[in-house]
Structures are given as C-alpha cells and as structure tokens.
C-alpha cells in the first residue's frame, strides 16, 4: 500500500505537471527512468523541491528516500531555486591553468556570494562546472546557457553587471 501523501496534490491548473506526467508515461512508469524524469522536472520547475521529489517518487513507485538519494548524489540536480541569470565558471583543468580561479574570485567578490549561491535579490546564481568541454577556447564561462571562450575577469564582471543594469 502506498503511504498517505505527505503533501497536497499538485494544483490542477499547473501545466508543468501535465508535461511531467507525460514524460513519466513515456518512460512507462519505470523506476529506472528516474534520472530522465528528474531531468525533465528540473527543466520545467528550475529546481527540485521536496514536494516535487515526492511526486516523482510516487509516480515511479520508488521510496522517496531513493528519489532524494538520486537527486542529491548528482551535481546536475539542484534543490535550491536558481537566480534569474546564471553564470557557470568552468573549472576544468584547461580553464584552471588559464586562470579560471581569478574569474571566479572576481565574480564572487563583486557580487558578494560564493560559488553555488544566489544573490539575495534572486538575480544571479554563480556556479562552477567540472568541465564544459570547451577546453580549446579556455577559460570558458557559460552565461545563461551560452558558452563563451577566452573570457577575462573584467569581461565576466561586465557581463554580470549588464544583467544588473537591465533590471534597474
């Protein structure tokens, strides 16, 4: 017997749940498709809230602990909301050798947050990546999903400040 739901059922009008349900159905409710389903869930919702994890776990008939275990094991899944803009500094070897640490510390100093955090106003998240595979144009930084190469600390600051200006 499945246990009683620990949270409210999803709001009926939320379309994102419909898309998520379709993805779950496409994988035929297979427990082994949990990574694929979580990928879809994160794409839809931006991050994996606890309720969302429970929802996925119940749909795939796996214990919530396993959904939580998988979600926290992999770096790609985030349990916290991300900022409006994201800035991913590649810390792969090639980028590191070419000064990625300087870019990161410049960004951290400027915005007053550490890697993996979001500014209090929710505008910007700074994260690091293991390697984005753009080593030929190191150091690389991913600004809102677009990889840019041969980035200098000044350029990275300029890009993030631009976002700040746009919202003013």
């Amino acid at each position, binding site marked *: 017997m499945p246990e009683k739901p620990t949270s409210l059922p999803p709001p009926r009008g939320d379309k994102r749940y419909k898309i998520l349900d379709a993805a779950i159905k496409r994988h035929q409710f297979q427990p*082994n498709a*949990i990574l694929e389903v979580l990928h879809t869930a994160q794409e839809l919702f931006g991050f994996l809230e606890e309720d969302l994890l429970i929802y996925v776990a119940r749909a795939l008939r796996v214990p919530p602990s396993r959904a939580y275990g998988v979600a926290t094991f992999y770096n790609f899944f985030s349990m916290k909301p991300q900022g409006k803009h994201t800035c991913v500094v590649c810390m792969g*070897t090639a980028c590191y050798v070419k000064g990625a640490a300087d870019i990161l510390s410049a960004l951290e100093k400027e915005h007053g947050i550490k890697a993996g955090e979001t500014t209090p106003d929710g505008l910007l998240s700074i994260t690091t990546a293991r390697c984005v595979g753009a080593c030929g144009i190191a150091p690389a930084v991913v600004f809102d999903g677009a990889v840019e190469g041969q980035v200098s600390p000044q350029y990275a600051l300029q890009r993030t400040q631009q976002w700040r200006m746009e919202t003013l």
Partner: protein
Amino acid sequence: MTGEELLAAAEKEQAARRQAKYCVAVCAAAGCHSLGSTSIREIFQKAVNEAGLGEQILLYGTGCLGLCHAGPLVEIQRYREDSWERWLYHHVNEGMVAEIVRHHLGGDQPLAQFLYPLDDPFFRSQYKIVLENAGRINPERLEDYIGADGYSALWKAVSEMTPMDVVREVTQSGLRGRGGGGYPTGLKWSTVAKSKGSRKFVVCNADEGDPGAFMDRSILEGDPHRILEGMALAAYAIGAEQGYIYVRGEYPMAISRLKTAIRQAEKVQLLGNRILESAFNFRVDLRIGAGAFVCGEETALIGSIEGNRGTPRPRPPFPAEKGLWDMPTLINNVETFANVPAIVRNGGQWFSRIGTEKSKGTKVFALAGKIVHTGLIEVPMGISLRQVIFDIGGGIPDGKQFKAAQTGGPSGGCIPLPHLDLPIDYESLIKVGSMMGSGGLIVMDETSCMVDVARFFMQFCMDESCGKCVPCRAGTAQIYRILEKISSGTASLHDLELMEELCDLLKHTSLCGLGQTAPNPVVSTLRYFREEYLAHIEQKTCPAGVCRMGAPDAACGSAEPVQEKENCL
C-alpha cells in the same frame, strides 16, 4: 532500406558533392560555435544566395576541424580532376565572408591573406580515422554520413559476415579501449559474446568526465552516426538487441545530435527491427548523465542507467558477465566505437599496420592549456610527445618554457621535459607514471605550480568521490588537507611523508578506479618536481609564484575553503 538502396544513396551523395562548384564546410563544433560560427554560416548562406551561387555551392555545418584557437573556421573544398582541393579560412568574420564569396566562390581567387596553410605541421603530422569525416559531412544529415561510406560496414557485417567474423576482425586489428585503460577490445567482445544470458546489452560510455578533455564530445557532435554504426556492429557481434548511450548532461548539443541521428536511422531501418532487411534487430536509447565523474567507471555507470545513485560495486563479476540488470553487458568508450566501422570496412589487418607493436591505430587528443594550437588532433600511436606539443601544437606561447604535460586527467600524471621524446602508447605512459587516459593533454609552462596542480586534481577527486568506500572518501580529503598546508607554507616534512603513505594506501585499498588512481597526480608530481614541494615546505616559497603563502584559506588563489566533507569522516 536495403543494401542496394544504401549503395545507391551513397553514390548519389558522392556525385552531388563532386558536381558542386564548391563545398563550404563551416565548423559547428563547440569551440567555433561559441565564437559565433552559427551566425557566420547564416551570413554565408545569405551572401551566397545574393551572389546567385545558391545552386552551385554546398554549404553546411560540420564537425570539429581541429584548430579551435583560430575559430571560427571555414573549409572550402572543390573536386577537380579526381582529387579534392582544400582551403582553410581562420578567424572568419562577417567582413571576410563577403570577400570570400565574391573572390573565392564567385571568382575562383582564393584569398591568400586569410588562409591557414594546410601544409602546416599541425595538419601534416595527423592521421585521421575517427575524425575522417570532419569537414566532410553535416552531422545532422544521415545522407551525408552514408555518402562518406557510412553504414557500409554494417551492411558488410550483416550480409556476409558471421558475428564471430566481426569479433575476429576487431581482435585482429589490435584495437584497445580508448577510455584510458587500454583493455583489448576484441578480447572484451569475445568474452561478452561467449557469456550466457537471456538478453545482452551494448553500452556506450559517453560520460566524458575528465576535466580538460573534449574528444568524445567532438566525435558525438561531429559524427553521431559513426557511434551508432559502431554500436550496431558490436551488438551484431555479441548478440545484443538493446544499446544505451550514457552521455553527459553538460553536452546539450551532443544530446540533440544523437537524438536526431537515432530518429533518422530508425526511420530507414538502420536501427530497429530487421536492419538492412536482415534478421538483426537493434535499438539504441539515450541516458543522460547528471554530473557525476564516478559514473565513468563502468559499474557505477551501470548503476546510473538502472536509475540508482552512481556508486561502483566490486568486480568480479565483471559487466561482461553480469552487467546491466545482471545481464552480459559490453561497455566501450565513444572513441572505441568510432574506430569499429573503419576496422570492419577496411579489415583488421589494415588497422593493425598503424601504430606501435602493442598499441595499434590512432588516438585523438584534446590539446589545451599553455599551448599555441589548442584544439583537437588525431595522431598515430607511437608519435612522440615532443612532436605533438612542439610540431603539431606549435609550442608554448609568449616565449615561456615548457614544464610538464598532463595526460589522463585526475587519474593521470605529469610528464616532465626529460621524457618528451617518449612514444605515445599505453605502456610507455604508464612507465613514466602517467596514463593514456581518454585523451586530454594539458600543457603547463613555468608559471604553473605543480603543487597547485596536484591540489587542484585532489580537490576534484575529493568532491567527486562517491563516498561508498572509506579509503577514497576519507583519504582524498586528508591528502587534500595536506596539500593545502603545503601550498600555504605551513606543512612540515612529516606531512610529506604522511601524504606519501596515504597515496600508497589509496592506490591499494580503494574500491574503484577513482580512488585507486586519485593519488597519481600527486605521486607523479612528487616524482619529478620534488624540489618544488620542498621549496614550499622548507623555504616557504612558491617557485612559480602561484601559491599565496601564509593564509591557509587563501592558498593558491583558491576560492573554495576546505569542504564540509570532513564532517563525514
């Protein structure tokens, strides 16, 4: 699709390419894409149309052309008198496009001032098998791949070879695993072929986790059908009907190209049921990784495909006997599969003539770091590191001195100047304390501190340790702390001793390859650059000027303090 239709389609494509006045290949790989090659292609198309050349010019995006530092790259080809003429334009911008279209495409006058010399050692010393289609095909068109003799090896296998024949060809070729370990591929295939199970699986390991490596990505993005064909050949050889490609979530372009390729192949029965009208069935599904380095280890990868946390398990039993869902499973790396179609097409003997006695064929390397020509190269095994770095790679920029070459990522080691004439093959690299690895080659100059590099890799291994076995989980954290102390000038010689002991412990007692090889960067830098460690400890100086002495938290420009991982000890 039948075999005859395949041949007809190939001839049609080849004829179209030969008849075109010019073929214009715009590099669409990650490097050039980031430098704006997509908009360059659109501008090209517009300019060609405006010049009224739309009918005569074949314009397409293509896989990595290699010279990533000089992007965006555009290669122009023309078939004339039974041979192909080629020109390579580098650093292409909007203004150049108009001139190239007007003078070169329209007036047959190549613009010498923008051309990259194709007789440069960068191109002359390379030998392309895996990357043979770069510049030649549009990775998003199946017809292009078929035109480049694609799927002809599969047709040959299903129509005139038995599964054992395919295994025999691969064994004869001497191909060894390109993921780094170098296990003989033929031997692996015959083990899985002999294993008993109601179902068997083929898995392509495309979880390219090594920082500083982008070979697999370039292959997946530049020639996705090649991987599918290689996997289909493997499935035919071992008797599998289902395959999985486990690809990194960080590679969205590779994922979308693979999805397209699978859909295209299924549509014309190159995948699915009754492939090429034979009795052979094979489907491929994608599995997207979620950013865990340890998933490159085969048992962890299996766990991840099964929908669990990616933690390794002890071997034996090896996946060849009990893998995915306890069924015999063949796991090979992307580059290994990419070699297979050429081997089956041309025969194992042809392949075994390339390379050295024990390491056959070619190897793709990603050149990065302090080197003039950063990019993607493919060289025959046995070439010396000196040739790769100084001839092909163009040496060290800004007149700096070469210090070390790092191969094998976090599992590899640093190779110093005295060993530069070493031939690149599996055995020689292990002999000097490094390993072939998947092919990332990072060059460091005098401004790189070797203690800092060791610390960087140890931090990587510490963060990526899955936490299942104690030696790796606790050992990497402890070694990292000692390295922090050394690089901040607060360590003693006793610490160094302790670290060496720990390295030995990790190597012999960890559960999987991650922990067993995690000490390699430390051990190899200690072996060749011991004096740098001693300078940090005794004189409290960093000879390369990288590490900031005194403050443990601010050591080596590190932004991250010691992780909370200590808590789990």
